[in-house]
């Protein structure tokens, strides 16, 4: 229902499109039960059921949640994406190279690529897009690209000049800032350009009935020979989880997207349906405002974490056996996951929780100014969607067990976000993490004065480590730094986890190769993060 729409809009991954690693290790609880892929077949149409509608399709003004990215990858091509090992690899770009200190990134474009309106893709086009749309005041990409410049070197080569070293910069180019669109079309269409996207992608935008269907048709001049296989794709936003699943069951749609654990699991039970599951870096969290008593005292936060049983929290979301408990911002499949950090995260221990909270309660100089012996109390805000209400109620009862009085409050999305930004809260349910480079995610969430640091938690070691992280290109070095940061974060308990997000694309079994996309040079891609894929590589057999 509507509330689901709200929740998913609020909880979508940052910047869309960033990728996560699906490397070597065994995916936990994911299934890829699929039928035989067979040989590619040309032709045909598929209908894809998305979680939500997207208001506009132009990078810089459009907001791309997972449902938006799913469509975007049909019309646009990203300059780069993550490969199956979690490393950035050029896709539309021919190459991307940093300078020594990671302050400049040079991109070489492929020759002969055209936008759907015939405009050639070249450096000048990229510069026009960059200057006119991406860093324009009021653009939603202006923040990430603050003080960044684009310099043309020659017709197919240009570079991004950054204000400070950032080894994770290319990750942004997997998302909206890295999707070239035709500057001529954008200029011609003016305020309506968000409704008529023109990219370089395998499919050309055909028509759009908002909240109903968006149709794209095969691009006959696609720069990858032989692709796409399909003639047409119809994207239909179906905000309600249950009816979206029913639509898959009835065959009204051929592919279904969902980020809700319980829906994904129900999809597994459908006959004739293949499931492509991806456990990403977004995890559900309860965030504590570390500047507001009584949550400004780490003992209280620690106690609250000890008092909760994550297994039950996951059970209530319907994810038992599918979604592993989270202990950090990175999922087990990410190269930045650290077993040490996981082991250090406290397990369910209500007695220890009780001891800690009693310590605070009996402390004469307790931060909330109450008399010793008086119970701790605070307010927990969350969205009104039924599953989250259950989650909040469960939290409340865990904390009640240790004598903490929690008042539950439900707020709709706009107010929820506003309060998180302004710090007008004590505890909230939220999401942390993104399928993006850890530098960006961690810097946004755990440094000040980042407006996105809702917990207002920070530590000098985090700042130092982040600076090093941005300047380092060595994976092992980065992993160690991220581990240290994760450890520092967890020791401060600014947040508590209630399970990762499972992204699922469920497809009728005659739709093939949903997760098998590759880079032009043959390297395998990362699959279906955030329930999105490259539709150029998908075909249908009936």
């Amino acid at each position, binding site marked *: 229902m*509507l509330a689901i729409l709200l929740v998913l809009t609020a909880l979508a991954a940052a910047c869309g499109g960033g990728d996560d690693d699906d490397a070597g290790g065994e995916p936990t609880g994911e299934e890829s039960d699929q039928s035989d892929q067979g040989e590619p077949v040309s032709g045909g149409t598929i209908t894809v059921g998305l979680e939500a509608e997207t208001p506009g399709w132009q990078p810089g003004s459009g907001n791309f949640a997972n449902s938006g990215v799913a469509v975007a990858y049909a019309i646009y091509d990203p300059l780069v994406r993550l490969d199956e090992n979690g490393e950035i690899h050029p896709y539309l770009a021919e190459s991307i190279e940093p300078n020594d200190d990671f302050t400049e990134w040079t991109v070489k474009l492929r020759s002969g690529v055209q936008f759907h309106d015939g405009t050639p893709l070249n450096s000048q086009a990229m510069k026009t897009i960059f200057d006119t749309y991406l860093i324009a005041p009021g653009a939603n990409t202006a923040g990430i690209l603050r003080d960044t410049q684009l310099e043309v070197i020659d017709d197919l080569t240009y570079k991004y000049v950054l204000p400070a070293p950032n080894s994770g910069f290319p990750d942004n180019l997997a998302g909206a800032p890295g999707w070239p669109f035709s500057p001529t079309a954008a200029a011609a269409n003016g305020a309506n350009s968000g409704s008529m996207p023109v990219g370089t992608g395998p499919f050309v935008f055909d028509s759009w009935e908002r909240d109903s269907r968006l149709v794209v048709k095969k691009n006959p001049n696609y720069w990858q020979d032989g692709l796409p296989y399909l003639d047409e794709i119809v994207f239909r936003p179906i905000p309600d989880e249950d009816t979206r699943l029913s639509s898959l069951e009835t065959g009204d749609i051929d592919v279904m997207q969902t980020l809700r654990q319980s829906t994904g699991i129900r999809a597994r039970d459908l006959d004739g349906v293949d499931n492509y599951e991806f456990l990403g870096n977004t995890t559900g969290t309860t965030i504590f405002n570390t500047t507001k008593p009584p949550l400004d005292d780490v003992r209280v936060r620690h106690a609250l974490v000890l008092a909760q049983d994550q297994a*039950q929290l996951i059970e209530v979301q319907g994810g038992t056996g599918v979604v592993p408990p989270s202990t950090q911002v990175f999922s087990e499949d990410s190269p930045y996951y650290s077993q040490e950090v996981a082991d250090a995260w406290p397990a369910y221990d209500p007695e220890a929780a009780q001891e800690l909270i009693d310590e605070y309660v009996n402390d004469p100089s307790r931060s909330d100014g109450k008399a010793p012996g008086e119970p701790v109390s605070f307010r927990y805000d969350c969205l*009104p969607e*039924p599953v989250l209400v259950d989650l909040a109620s469960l939290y409340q009862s865990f904390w009640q067990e240790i004598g903490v009085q929690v008042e539950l*409050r439900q707020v709709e999305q706009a107010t929820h976000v506003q309060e998180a930004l302004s710090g007008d809260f004590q505890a909230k349910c939220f999401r942390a993490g993104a399928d993006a480079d850890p530098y960006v995610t961690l810097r946004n969430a755990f440094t000040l004065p980042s407006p996105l640091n809702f917990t207002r938690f920070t530590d000098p070691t985090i700042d130092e480590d982040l600076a090093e992280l941005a300047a380092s290109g060595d994976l092992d070095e980065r992993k160690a730094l991220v581990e240290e940061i994760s450890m520092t974060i967890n020791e401060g308990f600014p947040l508590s986890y209630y399970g990762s997000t499972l992204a699922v694309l469920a497809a009728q079994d005659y739709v093939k190769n949903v997760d098998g996309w590759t880079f032009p040079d043959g390297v395998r891609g990362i699959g279906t993060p955030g329930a999105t894929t490259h539709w150029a590589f998908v075909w249908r057999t009936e």
Partner: protein
Amino acid sequence: MAALQPLDDAADRVLGLGVDDEPSLDVIPAPAGSGPRARRRWRFRRAGGKKGVAFWLAVAWLATVAFCAVFATRLPLPDPNRPNVIDRFAGFSAEHPLGADSLGRDQLSRVVHAARVSLVVSVSAVTIGLVVGGIIGTAVGYVRGRTERVVMAIVDVIAAFPALVLLLAVLAFVGRSLTVISVLIGALSIPIYTRVSRANTLSIAQRDFVHAAHTLGAKQSRILFREILPNVVPAVAAFALVAMGLVIVIEGSLAILGLSVEPPDPTWGGMIAASKPHLEEAAHLALVPAGAMFFTVLSLNFVGDTLRRGLDVRDSNL
């Protein structure tokens, strides 16, 4: 209409009955079709309408619900708000006579506790709408003229206003409580009661007995109260009884938008709304509160109907 022939036959049967010599006030015809085409006697009953088994069942149910609403906390029931995730979706059993919900909380206990909130919200909301709307509508429908135009314009403002905006704004500023929600829903429903009572007043005001009263020199207020109001009340009351059920469901929909009473306190509407993600695996999550609501509203209507038949001096002439 040939299809309605049986109706005609039944009607004939009814009308063809002999009437006892005693005055036929306070009578109703015997239910048609419950016997051969024999002559049947009018049956007498005391004022208040025929009170059969159904009536007393309805009364018993309402009494139970009222009792639960008042004494919920004193009853020996498990804590309605205490999650017990192991028992999730438990079916009907000795431990959980009405099953358990998505957090393993006992449904019987929740449905009983929910009675108080749901009843308070629905009764007060409907009462506000009924009383305020009913009076305004009747008065305005009788008086007509400029007053009518101005008042109806104001009422239209309430009707046409996007309710969600009002709810969000008021709840954001005033805070959320049972009182506020009941008053808001009540206020938002004033237009419909106003219009319905006005509509009926317009019709009744044309009747001969009203004209007669007027001619006889009765004061306007007397006509309003003695002639018009008693005839408007049944129609508006019928809507009010239906509206009680509607308000319970509406409250549930509001819960989905975060506009209702705060969790974890249960309400029938909230329980129904929360059952949606689990309809397939655990239908009893929806059926239990829906059932409670169904029986309550049905009982209210039965009782209301029977009482009405007692108050009505005249019976059906058909």
